[in-house]
């Protein structure tokens, strides 16, 4: 009996604290909103940091382990204290970078991010916590950094870096760190740094790979010297599609912090004119000597054509986010909504649901009645897969009542691959490799299913 009473008492206590926590979260959200007001159209004005003649007793204690390094010393620490760093992107790279710069005592950190904290960010964006889901990343990062080191001035910019704002913003900082997640922003940051004459510490990560370089430092090449042309949009993989391991962004963010600190403290960077590659699967680091500055570079060359910032989304043919693009390969008649598919499923109408996601995603979640054939297998007309599909279609025809339409509905995560698969299946039926059948895809895929039809279906 005593045990039962304790259970009840504990349950009541948990409920009380959960309520308290939820009220705290609401107050925090309100406070954060207040902090954002007034939302300036132009970036917040910041005055130059005053130079510093000596360290205080507290500072000496706090930074003592790095002060005794002869390469850094008091001189380097004083330089850090008056340095300002603009961090473009408070995600997987920006979080560890900002964390180490704040811990090391960099004077001012500008934090740029237009996005809000989502649960799927937390496995790698280590400055953001559960309580701030839905809040601006720039403010969430600033709040964490202030707790870490109240002497560091954090200036959050909860807005996208745009051609209209970038140059003005970059000019206010000594060093720029590119921690962004998309190609247009990388060209924008590069050009702004070249125009403003600022060194750019650039890192990126995807899957198990990372890259880091310092651009436009002391006569070295800029991003455009090395990559004059942006990649075709369809060859670019983002972290949502390709995946990324948090530790990998963490390693690269820390290397980036190291380069920023060395530049800010006057020690000079290690990766100007060279590219460090990190292969996390094999545990290899490899340093590639890059080309020198390109005399005919559009940005930093002798006769630059980039004399002010341009439309980088048009230049790259993609948007300045890492959100997944939606393709439009099919006509509306060839597509159905999740609501339509749900009604069809409930009506018991005979059909085949074909899931074309990679196996690794099917392992995460699936609709139990779906036949699974990855798009890759369809693309290379894998005989085994086509046999499986042909059998499923014939079986469906047998079970279907007289006159019932033979239909395949193709589904994937977001409704892009499913359209590609429909195109392939249409070719295969036209070529009579498969029996005649109507093929359509489900708009928005399984993530739309999770959002609109089944709240218990996992989102990833």
């Amino acid at each position, binding site marked *: 009996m005593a045990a039962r009473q304790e259970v009840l008492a504990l349950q009541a206590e948990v409920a009380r604290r959960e309520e308290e926590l939820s009220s705290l979260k609401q107050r925090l959200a309100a406070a954060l909103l207040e902090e954002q007001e007034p939302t300036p159209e132009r970036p917040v004005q910041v005055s130059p940091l005053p130079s510093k003649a000596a360290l205080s007793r507290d500072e000496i204690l706090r930074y003592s382990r790095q002060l005794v390094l002869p390469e850094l010393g008091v001189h380097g620490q004083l330089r850090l204290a008056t340095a300002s760093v603009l961090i473009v992107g408070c995600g997987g790279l920006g979080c560890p970078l900002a964390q180490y710069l704040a811990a090391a005592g960099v004077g001012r950190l500008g934090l740029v991010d237009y996005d809000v904290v989502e649960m799927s960010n937390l496995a790698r964006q280590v400055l953001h916590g559960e309580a701030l889901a839905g809040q601006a990343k720039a403010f969430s990062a600033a709040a964490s950094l202030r707790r870490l080191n109240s002497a560091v001035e954090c200036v959050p910019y909860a807005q996208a870096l745009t051609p209209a704002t970038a140059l003005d913003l970059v000019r206010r900082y000594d060093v720029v760190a590119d921690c962004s997640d998309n190609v247009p922003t990388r060209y924008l940051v590069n050009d702004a740094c070249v125009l403003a004459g600022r060194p750019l510490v650039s890192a990126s990560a*995807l899957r198990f790979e990372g890259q880091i370089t310092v651009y436009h430092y002391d006569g070295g090449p800029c991003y455009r010297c090395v990559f004059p042309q942006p*990649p075709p949009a369809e060859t670019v993989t983002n972290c949502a599609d390709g995946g990324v391991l948090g530790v990998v962004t963490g390693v690269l963010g820390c290397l980036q912090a190291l380069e920023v600190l060395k530049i800010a403290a006057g020690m000079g960077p290690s990766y100007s004119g060279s590219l460090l590659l990190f292969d996390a699967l094999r545990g290899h680091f490899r340093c590639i*000597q890059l*080309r020198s500055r390109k005399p005919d570079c559009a940005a930093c060359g002798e006769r630059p054509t980039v004399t002010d910032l341009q439309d980088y989304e048009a230049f790259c043919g993609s948007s300045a986010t890492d959100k997944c693009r939606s393709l439009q390969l099919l006509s509306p008649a060839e597509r159905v909504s999740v609501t339509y598919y749900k009604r069809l499923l409930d009506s018991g109408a005979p059909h085949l649901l074909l899931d074309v996601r990679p196996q690794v995603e099917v392992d995460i979640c699936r609709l139990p009645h779906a036949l699974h054939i990855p798009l890759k297998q369809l693309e290379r007309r894998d005989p085994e897969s086509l046999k499986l599909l042909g059998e499923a279609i014939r079986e469906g025809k047998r079970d279907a009542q007289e006159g019932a339409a033979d239909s395949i509905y193709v589904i994937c995560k977001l409704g892009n691959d499913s359209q590609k698969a429909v195109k392939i299946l249409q070719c295969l039926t036209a070529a009579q490799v498969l029996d005649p059948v109507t093929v359509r895809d489900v708009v928005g895929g399984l993530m739309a299913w999770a959002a609109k039809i089944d709240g218990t279906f996992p989102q990833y």
Partner: protein
Amino acid sequence: MVPWCQVEVLYFAKSAEIAGVRSETISVPQEIKALQLWKEIESRHPGLADVKNQVIFAVRQEYVELGDQLLLLQPGDEIAIIPPISGG
């Protein structure tokens, strides 16, 4: 007749995806122009044409322009194909 030698080609990021391998050993003339060497590699993996203009092509860990520059390769030399990644 120019002697041939075996070199190791390393594929990074998108190029590894296209090639379907992370590395392979291939046989090429010891004296070869940079662009010719690229074409040799592209003929094995035609999909690499899509990223040709956006890669760092490195021989012995050093950037090489895809042009007429004559390379003198040694057995075991490392050729790297490095497309940029942009995630973060």
